């Protein structure tokens, strides 16, 4: 009887305001407050609130048999605290059911593991205490920004005491094996890997609303049937939470699909729901999963090129992480926080110059008209931040 492990990624960045050469040195207001607030409110109304209510009802209805996990970034938690405490309350109610697990990630949804291990550790710690403070849980499973993963991350995370990591079930790592078992990094069995099934996840995340898709419109019992026909021990489905009501608008029927899914899955008779830590407690790793290069859940290539794939991104990343020493020397909460917010991966995602289907996905999420605008304004902000750091 395979288990279904469902987790949702919840993240909203602090987007930058248009910051021109005239602003450099004249003021340090980097964030597009109005846009960030209005987007958060819109997404709360379209997605977070109704989806949370749907999940809560399903948990109550199925009396513990429906279980899910969430990965909430620190930056979305802060924004909810400030602008939508009602959404935060609804997450608290979910936490109180005992059927919802909250995952560990970097507070600022950053790429810090790639550039600065100390910063990575700081953001993990910060995130852990935020989850404890707001939701009363201490995360035991780690999920890195955009499922970015490499063997070293496995070693590092196991030393911090986490029971497991969620990673993308890439073909490069699986070599034809099934993603429906737990794995461990090569020659190292002190941590387990739960692998996301991207084909089934993307059926919901990307194809659900596609009228040209052979299975459109997708019915819950059809999807549950696909799950029931899978071999193995655990099917991990990971989705942006915004899939429900924001990426796919309510009129696609996505919220109804979410509402009907738990019952349809349980009715197949050979599936159950587990949270990630329950998966790690129940199942053993069946083999080694080798990711010598960085992989992620994004794009068609499943690599880190959406964030670190061109010279603009390379420079922006080098420049922001290069400020570490100066930021620490300043040692003020405000400077540290601004530096951290500038590390959020979304800034670099907006700078991606890609073609084809991936380009549309990038454009959909970007507040900028082009990747060049994203770079230009980001670098102007970095310039001002440098000036600020250089002042006594």
């Amino acid at each position, binding site marked *: 009887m395979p288990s279904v492990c469902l987790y949702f990624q919840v993240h909203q960045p602090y987007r930058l305001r248009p910051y*021109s*050469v*005239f*602003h*450099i*040195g*004249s003021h340090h207001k980097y964030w597009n407050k109005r846009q960030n607030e209005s987007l958060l409110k819109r997404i709360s109304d379209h997605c977070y609130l109704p989806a949370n209510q749907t999940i809560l009802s399903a948990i109550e209805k199925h009396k513990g048999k429906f279980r899910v996990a969430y990965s909430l970034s620190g930056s979305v938690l802060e924004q909810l605290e400030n602008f939508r405490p009602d959404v935060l309350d609804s997450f608290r109610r979910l936490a109180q059911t005992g059927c919802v697990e909250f995952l560990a990630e970097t507070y600022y949804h950053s790429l810090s593991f790639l550039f600065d291990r100390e910063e990575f550790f700081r953001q993990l710690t910060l995130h852990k205490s935020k989850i404890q403070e707001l939701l009363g849980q201490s995360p035991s499973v780690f999920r890195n920004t955009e499922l970015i993963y490499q063997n070293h991350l496995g070693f590092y995370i196991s030393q911090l005491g986490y029971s497991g990591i969620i990673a993308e079930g890439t073909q490069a790592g699986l070599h034809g094996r099934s993603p429906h078992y737990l794995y461990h990094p090569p020659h190292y069995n002190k941590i387990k890997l739960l692998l996301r099934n991207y084909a089934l996840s993307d059926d919901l995340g990307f194809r659900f609303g596609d009228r040209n898709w052979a299975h459109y419109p997708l019915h819950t019992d059809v999807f549950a049937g696909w799950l029931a026909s899978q071999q193995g021990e655990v099917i991990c489905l990971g989705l942006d939470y915004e899939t429900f009501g924001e990426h796919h608008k309510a009129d696609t029927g996505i919220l109804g699909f979410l509402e009907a899914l738990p019952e349809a899955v349980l009715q197949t008779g050979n599936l159950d729901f587990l949270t990630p830590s329950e998966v790690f407690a129940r199942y053993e790793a069946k083999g080694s999963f080798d990711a010598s290069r960085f992989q992620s859940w994004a794009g068609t290539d499943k690599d880190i090129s959406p964030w670190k794939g*061109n*010279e*603009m991104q*390379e*420079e*922006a990343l*080098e*420049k922001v992480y290069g400020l570490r020493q100066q930021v620490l020397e300043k040692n003020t909460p405000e400077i540290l926080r601004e530096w951290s917010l500038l590390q959020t991966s979304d800034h670099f995602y907006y700078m991606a*110059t890609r073609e084809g289907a991936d380009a549309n996905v990038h454009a959909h999420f970007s507040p900028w*008209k*082009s990747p*060049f*605008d994203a*770079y*230009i304004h980001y*670098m*102007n902000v*970095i*310039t001002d931040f*440098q*000036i600020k750091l250089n002042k006594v």
Partner: protein
Amino acid sequence: MKYKILTLGWEFPPQINGGLGVASLGLTRALSEYAEISVIIPRSDPRTLAENFQLIGANEVDIEKLAGETPKIHRSILSKVHIDYVDVSLSGYEQPTLYYTRKPASRPVMVVERPVKDNIIGMPRKFRLGALYGSDLLTRISEFTDIASRLSRKLQFDFIHAHDWMTFLAGLEIKAISGKPLVLHVHSLEYDRSGPEKKGYVFELEKHAMQEADLVMAVSDYTADVIENHYEIDPDKIWVVPNGLEKLKSYRKTPPFPEKLVVFAGRLVAQKGPGYFLEMAMKVLEKYTNVRFAIAGQGEKLPELVQTVAEARLGDKIHFTGFLSGKDLRKLLAMADVLVMPSVSEPFGLIATEAVQMGVACVISHQSGVSEVLKHAPKANYHDTDQMAAWVLSLLNDPSLWRKTVAATQKDLESISWDISARKAIAGFERLSAQKK
């Protein structure tokens, strides 16, 4: 007796995107002291100040009331030339975004199939409103030619004075109808915009019109040379009328950052040499770090330029501003120490005269008309970025050289005015008049 001149214009402030509109208005205003002028332009705008001359917008004309048959000449010219593209450097003008996303740099120049059909010429009721430049530029030109030539039958004039290639067909048409001498005023050429190797339809049209014209006025000696040597026009027909000066309210502003500021301002197209500016900037930064560079403007080269900056890891030293309004451009100049204009081929170079007035030291390319005016400005060949960087370094390092350069070039500007230009133009008309007798 004052001459009566029928002027054909395309851009007129506030409908402008470069020097053409500014210069057309400046010259026409000054000429109106010496001649009676009627101006036909595609779109009139109530904000245009036409104090002393008659301004007719084709958008205001009621075609039904115009006499005359559909003109024939421009139809035959249009159908003789195989028009298989619209010049991309014109269709990309003035988009509101920094980067014109419809034309990624990685793709070849957009090809617009435009077979010659009778209905291009058609019978438009009114000149269609919309952008002066765009993919249906040729349709607009055809419509403008149609309306202007019919209008001309109702007007009295001694000369036709047509500004830049968009109005040249109308000029030829009206010359054929009226038998009056045609004077072409060349502010910019396809040779400048697209380079000497790209001789397309616009080049052919310019050449044909200049061959047919009675006199060709050029805004600089530089442009007169191009007309003679690259268009093979009889030098006796070429008459230089240097541009005048748009007086600016000058002010200086301390930048909010501690570094000095070196500016490029212009469309980001090959003609303006933004790539040479970057090369120069990188050479300066090797020796002098207390400086920032700003690239003001937009265009098809932006992606390439931005990526070059990123590759050099200079995104925190070289800043792109996108398109700036006139007010913001002056604000940038007010903060700038040096403006570098590395134009590959620049008939005049209005921006340099603006920068000088704003108290900025200018380094300009020899391949520009304005270099004839700014005798005391440091100059280099557009591709000689070593020389350009050396000049910029000297100006940044030596405050007294900087002060002397600004003062001397400001004095240089005293040698030009629109009144001087107008008198030079009138002398051209007089010469033509004498020849005809």
